[in-house]
């Protein structure tokens, strides 16, 4: 699976970081979320699906 974030939408709410901390991070000076692992293993799917659902601005996509 491949993870992408629409950086025009991201407002750094941080819900994805709470849902999937191994995949998403927001550093101190980041205007948008950083993807730590854009092609994670299946074991992360549940957490990432949760992150997609929780994102208040629907900025996260999963492919595959």
């Amino acid at each position, binding site marked *: 699976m491949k993870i992408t974030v629409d950086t025009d939408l991201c*407002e*750094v709410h*941080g819900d994805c970081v*709470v849902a999937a*901390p191994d995949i998403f991070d*927001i550093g101190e000076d980041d*205007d948008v979320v950083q993807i730590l692992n854009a092609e994670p293993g299946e074991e992360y799917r549940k957490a990432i699906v949760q992150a997609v659902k929780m994102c*208040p*601005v629907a900025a996260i996509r999963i492919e595959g």
Partner: protein
Amino acid sequence: MTTTAPELRIFDYDTYAQGDPTTFGLPLEQYRHLRDEEPCFLQEFDDPMLIDRAWVVSRNEDIWEVDRNTELYAADRGYVNIWQVVPIDPKNGGLPAMLTTDGPRHREQRQVLAKAFTPGMVRKLEGKFRKYAKDVVDDALEKGTFNFVHTIAHNMPMEALGDVLGVPQEDRAKFFGWVDKFAAPFDTRITASFDEVMEAIGNLMVYSEELAELKRANPADDVMSRLVASGEGGNPLMSADEIVGNVALLASGAAESTRTAMSHGMHELMRNEKAMAWMRTHQDNLPPTVIQEMVRIASPFTHLVRTATRDHELHGKQIKEGDIVAMLFAAGNFDERAFDRPDEFQPDRIENPHVSFGRGAHKCLGQHVAALEMKILFEELFQRTSSIEPAGPISYVRDAYSRGVYELPVTITPA
């Protein structure tokens, strides 16, 4: 079989002031009727302090939809809640702030502030919060029996707001005094008149400008310094009015809501032996599930409103452009379509799509701060006590917007 519809008084102050402590202080029967029978309900008001009417959505899924569809349900066309006047509504004489802005302008403002509220930044506050919690519990242990709302729940969210914003120690007492005033504009035990509320807001706004000056001269690692920096240079991002408006927004969203969530949470634990035992088992490291569950049953703000941007139909009702649509968060938090046994407090609830923080672009900026404050405070309180017992009945603030607890008498025994 038809059941008799309960009398609907979902926006009456007294519905909440005289709430039933066995149903979280909420009119759960009225909410259920709305969700099942009138999921898009037209509420008419007859009060000069309030708006004229609003379509009320009460199902969890509908609230998610309204909150996330900013194109159809706008926040920038006036009004925040059912009040006619709020200080951050530029359409009705207030100052501009994030909550009453949409689109790119909202995102620009939000990004300036959001960086201070990310999970990573919030973690840096943990040491400070532990110290506040320790002081609060020291004081509580000394008292033994006290009003939980004042002695425990009040102080920490206020100090946290002071820290995040960058309010100097010597100004905090007066600053907290103003913030407390506009928490309950219609409860005469707290504010004698609405004029007092407006005066407090005025004072807070004047002070915000002073604080902005201070931070221009001495920038620090706080939100006020961020706001000020964004208002400088050849192309300032925020106007002076937006800076003050956003401070008012932060102040009104930060302190009282967290206090409310803690107080309702504590009350439920004392009613619920199983949940209390669960807390004791987990007191060294409280999982986020119990915090989110407290926030769900507390529903600190019962509702917020948006404005329809075009004519459309919802549950068979014709909503016209310009109509106000109220998201009744408190009802959406008890929807069995979204929750397993919603009327039960489940500290380990995993699936918890509550709407207390909102769910869209305007989602609570302070959600991570609030969750950390609550976790730390309850850990400290539980670790240092062997029992927490009620010392009298709970009473609620008289308000239909903010679900404050007026009094929660408790007795604690040291560990």
